[in-house]
């Protein structure tokens, strides 16, 4: 679309068409994006229809779909997903809240940071997967184990991002606050917390992702219900359709949580002019 031919064409073109263009482009991109999954699905269907791969190794897609519908209709899927959701919500809430408090304390006070940081780093350095067998011996394999593991996974990124966010408040702002002779509380309320919101939100997103991964780990290792358990169970029974359904649900939930938080992040930060 060159600028030159614009005057000739503009009157004859209905405005709606120009508005439609991004929509059309979006639809085209969407169609192209579906191409590869469609091809994979087709190959998968052909492969299993002609028994190129044994059905035990790769059940036909229609089985997976039917299995999904059965599990949904039977309430089984919702039950497992609900149990997983409750665990993540509990662990995440505890871990993120503690992480926020600890992060604020470490961000505001050098003394607290000096005392706590090395121990915190040592604990954070041992991955969640290392804590699971250890805590299994302490806590058993009940609900407490899951909550503690998920909370620990959520706590670490929360502390790191919160403390760094508070430390990262631009010096110039602090100086302005000093000029205005802000009290300690005013400084916290008007300057430090608002400036730290974006990194804290990054921390929340990170925490939730980690919490979800930790849930899968802990449910794979020690659980009798939940989405992770569905995977283990499917493997033991050699029900690949159940496993594939569980994998897709785990992916979808992770995706949805991240997207929702990304939207919330954008909305929360809409007051920032510099974006």
């Amino acid at each position: 679309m060159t600028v030159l031919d614009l005057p000739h064409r503009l009157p004859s073109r209905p405005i709606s068409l120009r508005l439609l263009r991004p929509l059309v482009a979006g639809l085209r991109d969407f169609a192209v994006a579906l191409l590869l999954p469609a091809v994979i699905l087709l190959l998968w269907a052909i492969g299993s229809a002609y028994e190129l791969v044994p059905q035990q190794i790769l059940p036909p897609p229609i089985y997976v779909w039917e299995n999904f519908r059965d599990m949904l209709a039977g309430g089984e899927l919702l039950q497992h997903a609900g149990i997983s959701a409750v665990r993540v919500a509990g662990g995440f809430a505890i871990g993120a809240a503690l992480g926020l408090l600890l992060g604020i304390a470490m961000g505001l006070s050098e003394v607290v940071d000096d005392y706590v940081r090395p121990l915190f780093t040592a604990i954070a350095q041992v991955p969640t997967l290392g804590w699971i067998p250890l805590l299994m011996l302490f806590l058993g394999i009940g609900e407490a184990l899951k909550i503690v593991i998920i909370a620990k996974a959520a706590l670490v990124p929360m502390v790191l991002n919160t403390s760094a966010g508070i430390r990262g408040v631009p010096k110039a702002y602090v100086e302005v606050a000093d000029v205005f002779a802000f009290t300690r509380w005013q400084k916290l309320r008007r300057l430090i917390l608002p400036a730290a919101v974006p990194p804290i939100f990054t921390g929340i997103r990170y925490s939730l992702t980690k919490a979800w991964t930790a849930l899968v780990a802990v449910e794979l290792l020690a659980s009798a219900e939940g989405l992770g358990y569905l995977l283990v169970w499917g493997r033991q029974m050699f029900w690949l359709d159940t496993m594939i359904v569980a994998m897709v649900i785990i992916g979808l939930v992770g995706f949805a949580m991240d997207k929702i938080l990304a939207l919330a992040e954008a909305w929360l930060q809409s007051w920032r002019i510099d974006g």
Partner: protein
Amino acid sequence: MSLPLAEPAIETSSTASRGWRPSHRLRRGLMLPLLLLVAWEASSHLRLVDPRFLPPLEAIAITAREEIWSGDLFLHLGASLARNLAGFAIGTLLGVAFGLLLGLSPVAGRIAGPTFHAAKQIAVLAWIPIISVWFGFAETAKVVFVAVAAFVPVALNTIEGAASAPKPLIEVCEVLTFSRWQRIRRAYLPSALPSILTGVHLGLIYAWLATVAAEYFMTVGPGIGGLIIAGRERFQMELVMLGVVILGTVGFLLNHIATLVEVRLLRWRA
């Protein structure tokens, strides 16, 4: 996983910015861990806690010595590291190739990009059961899983890096009528390198975690993960704790090595 690598970056910047009186800070930093260890040791010796749950520190040291002397520890560590490196190498090579393809070719990016971004949402651990069905329960499946774990961050960062070549640079290439290959070699690859290295760095850490995860969930064999699981099954807390310490230490060292390599390879940017 689409979030930036916040953790290590933040840590280094915040410690570097406040470098006052290191000895003072060190003393404060050691206080809490030391108190904790003393409390541990005391409660274990005074039988406040069942020593089966909280074995005294010297018991862990003795276990460590036994494991080292019998050579078992090195056997386990060697098995884990070999697995880790094999999977990491495969995953990284495939990840860089796949990422460059998607990042450099708009057509490939549009076709395969969305599928990749959707598939990466599945928590890596959720692949374990299906991989173990497809590749058996032995070594192959473990290496495949480690490769998958390393592949995702490498591919992701390579795509971002390849797409991030500065526009003026590309325009200069056009003015100089560079061939397609020259453009890739002289403009796209160098500007993608920092991002690719970030991906490889992340891939190395993910690969190590995946190694341990594979050893947990697939058949028990030699390896640090196997050591921990065996310790848990026999209720030998010392063995579990030893394994966890090694797990953390190896992760720390791998991270450290990767940082050094990254800094060295990117010296030309300064």
